[in-house]
């Protein structure tokens, strides 16, 4: 509906700003997902409070409330809503219902309700007005959105009450988080961002809220992240449990096991948030962010083979069971069948965790994650959560995997594990082996690999994710998730002071309200990739928790 980031002409937008030159200051209302923007002008100051409200009473299907408060002086303001449904591809009809401007296209509609914000006029696909925000005065603009149902026209009083209710809900939710280590503000902000990435009807967590924000401005690395990746599952459950989010953890695990049932025992790289297995990729006729084309919806990675995700799923199940949750016999049987499948397929090449579009190879991270799959499968079997009839086979195959990794994945010349069998390149995903307890005997080699990654892929606290070809043109920026993984690995391997230093440096890369995109552009420090990115915030939480655990000892 509002896609101006991807096409300033065809994408919709909602502008609200002073009609005179201004500067802005932004912050969240403490411990909430309610944003406050203060406009500072020569004529005075105005505060705008934005929230997607939670339902209460006869609420719209979805409601965006923007409260405008004059703080000082008299500031001329202007606003305009230009909704564009269906990625700007559908014709918008503007009209009025009971005097309220309404935009509609097929089964979607939006009412633009305003109070104290001028007399809105509707023309040329836009609804807007001008008004003056005087000190002490309040105005409000509310978007009431309906999909396949009649519009609800909320009164100002009702929307106002829902905004206050929403602030109170978020503060209660944030206050219930159990984390009490260092960088609490950044950790809670990350938790709040993750909560916004939860698809409430199913419990699935989206990788990011956007599609096609580019990994290289002007480049082709533009992907749709509005799906849930199995790859993120273990980190998700770890973070949710460490923050005391048991209901969210339970909902997510149930969703994951339900969604993956359709492709059982094989796993797909990603699933739709509603649980469907298909995510066909297509290109939209939009200009792209700063001309970065194509703009994609759907994700072709769904068809790839990635062996690492089996390790992620079984680690997720292990974390879930270890936290005291029951796995019913049906789930236990399915997990055992997945471990059996890993035994059958781990010798095959794959596309790896980063979904490279070059030819499949034997990625060492993938083999390590297959080992994790069988190790966690064995732990679940020994603790009685899954049938143990194949336990011996899993143990034997896990040993074979280790032999493969130590023989073909280790380079004596480099003194490091490498990106894929026989390669000399490095890959920051190998740090995940430290986070997921690749066997104790490998500690020296993991430590050496971590040093090699720091030497070759790092620039300060930031890491590139790999060196070498990935089948795509162009380049990419520093990968923030891997940078937090390095912090986590440093802490787990006992280098806590270095971890703290790197953590402090990385926290400085967050935006003005503590959110992160997927990557940072070398040189400029600006964000690249989709935003906000769940995996980065998961990695931040887990890195902070690892340090907190070790500092507390």
């Amino acid at each position, binding site marked *: 509906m509002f896609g101006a980031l991807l096409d300033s002409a065809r994408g919709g937008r909602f502008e609200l700003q002073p009609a005179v030159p201004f500067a802005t200051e932004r912050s969240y209302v403490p411990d909430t*997902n309610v944003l406050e923007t203060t406009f500072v002008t020569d004529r005075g100051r105005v505060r705008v409070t934005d929230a997607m409200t939670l339902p209460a009473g006869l609420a719209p*299907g979805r409601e965006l409330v923007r409260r405008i408060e004059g703080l000082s002086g008299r500031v001329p303001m202007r606003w305009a809503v230009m909704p564009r449904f269906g990625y700007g591809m559908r014709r918008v009809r503007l009209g009025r219902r009971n005097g309220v401007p309404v935009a509609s296209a097929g089964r979607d509609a939006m009412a633009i309700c305003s109070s104290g914000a001028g007399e809105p006029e509707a023309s040329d696909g836009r609804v807007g007005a001008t008004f003056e925000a005087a000190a002490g005065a309040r105005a409000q603009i509310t978007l009431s959105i309906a999909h396949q149902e009649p519009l609800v026209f909320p009164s100002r009083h009702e929307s106002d009450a829902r905004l206050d209710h929403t602030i109170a*809900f978020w503060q209660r*939710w944030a206050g219930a988080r159990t984390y009490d280590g260092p960088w609490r503000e950044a950790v809670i902000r990350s938790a709040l961002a993750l909560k916004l990435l939860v698809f409430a009807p199913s419990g*699935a967590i989206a990788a990011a809220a956007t599609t096609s924000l580019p990994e290289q401005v002007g480049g082709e690395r533009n992907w749709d992240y509005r799906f849930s990746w199995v790859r993120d599952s273990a980190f998700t459950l770890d973070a949710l449990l460490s923050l005391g989010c048991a209901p969210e953890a339970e909902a997510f695990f149930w969703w994951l096991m339900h969604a993956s*049932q359709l492709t059982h025992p094989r796993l797909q790289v990603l699933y739709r948030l509603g649980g469907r297995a298909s995510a066909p990729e297509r290109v939209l006729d939009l200009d792209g962010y700063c001309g970065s084309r194509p703009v994609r919806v759907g994700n072709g990675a769904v068809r790839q083979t990635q062996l690492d995700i089996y390790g992620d799923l079984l680690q997720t199940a292990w974390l879930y069971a270890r936290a005291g949750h029951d796995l019913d016999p049906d789930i236990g049987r399915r997990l055992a069948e997945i471990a059996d499948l890993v035994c059958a397929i781990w010798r095959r090449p794959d596309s790896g965790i980063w979904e490279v579009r070059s030819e499949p190879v034997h990625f060492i991270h993938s083999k390590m994650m297959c080992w994790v799959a069988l190790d966690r499968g064995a732990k679940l079997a020994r603790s009685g959560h899954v049938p143990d009839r194949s336990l011996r086979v899993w143990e034997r195959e896990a040993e074979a995997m280790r032999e493969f990794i130590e023989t073909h994945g280790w380079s004596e010349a480099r003194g490091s594990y490498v990106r894929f069998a026989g390669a000399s390149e490095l890959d920051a995903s190998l740090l995940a082996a430290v986070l997921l307890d690749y066997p104790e005997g490998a500690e020296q080699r993991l430590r050496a690999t971590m040093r090699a990654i720091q030497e070759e892929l790092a620039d300060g606290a930031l890491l590139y994710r790999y060196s070498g070809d990935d089948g795509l043109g162009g380049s990419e920026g520093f990968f923030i998730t891997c940078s937090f993984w390095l912090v986590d690995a440093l802490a787990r391997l006992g280098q806590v002071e270095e971890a703290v230093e790197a953590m402090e440096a990385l926290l400085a890369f967050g935006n003005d309200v503590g959110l992160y995109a997927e990557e940072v552009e070398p040189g400029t420090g600006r964000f690249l990739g989709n935003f906000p990115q769940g995996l980065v915030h998961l990695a931040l939480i887990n890195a902070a928790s690892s340090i907190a655990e070790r500092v507390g000892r």
Partner: protein
Amino acid sequence: MSIWGAIAGGFVGTLALTTILRGGSELGLTRMDLPFLLGTAFTPDRQRAKAVGYGLHFVAGQLFALLYYAVFAAIDERSWWLGALFGLVHALFAGTALVSILLPLVHPRMGSGQSAADSNPMLEPPGFMLSNYGDSTLAVTVLAHVIYGAIVGGFTSLSG
């Protein structure tokens, strides 16, 4: 036409419907599990939910068979193919309204289009035409209900 024929048809038809849905699940065609959906409305315990759900499922099978019987009686016509037609309508109603809209609204543990950040539903909603549970779910559901209807119609018609 005897009511006992409809009751017997309802029992056998529910057996067949359950077997087809379960078979579709094992074949990777669908994640639809009606007893599980019904049972989790009463308990979060998965095992107990399935046990409760199977009981409720068979009761529902009987109630629908009696509804079919009432319509047979009203129009004074019954046959296996008319039952199959009722089954088709029944499946489409389930896919468009009964299971896709009504169930999420009354089920305490199921998400719906109205779910927001202040809820943590443990079951995903089926979606329009049950598509969230797999692209083939509607086809499997229609097949199962058509066979259910044919059995209810056939038993009712055979009972005199």
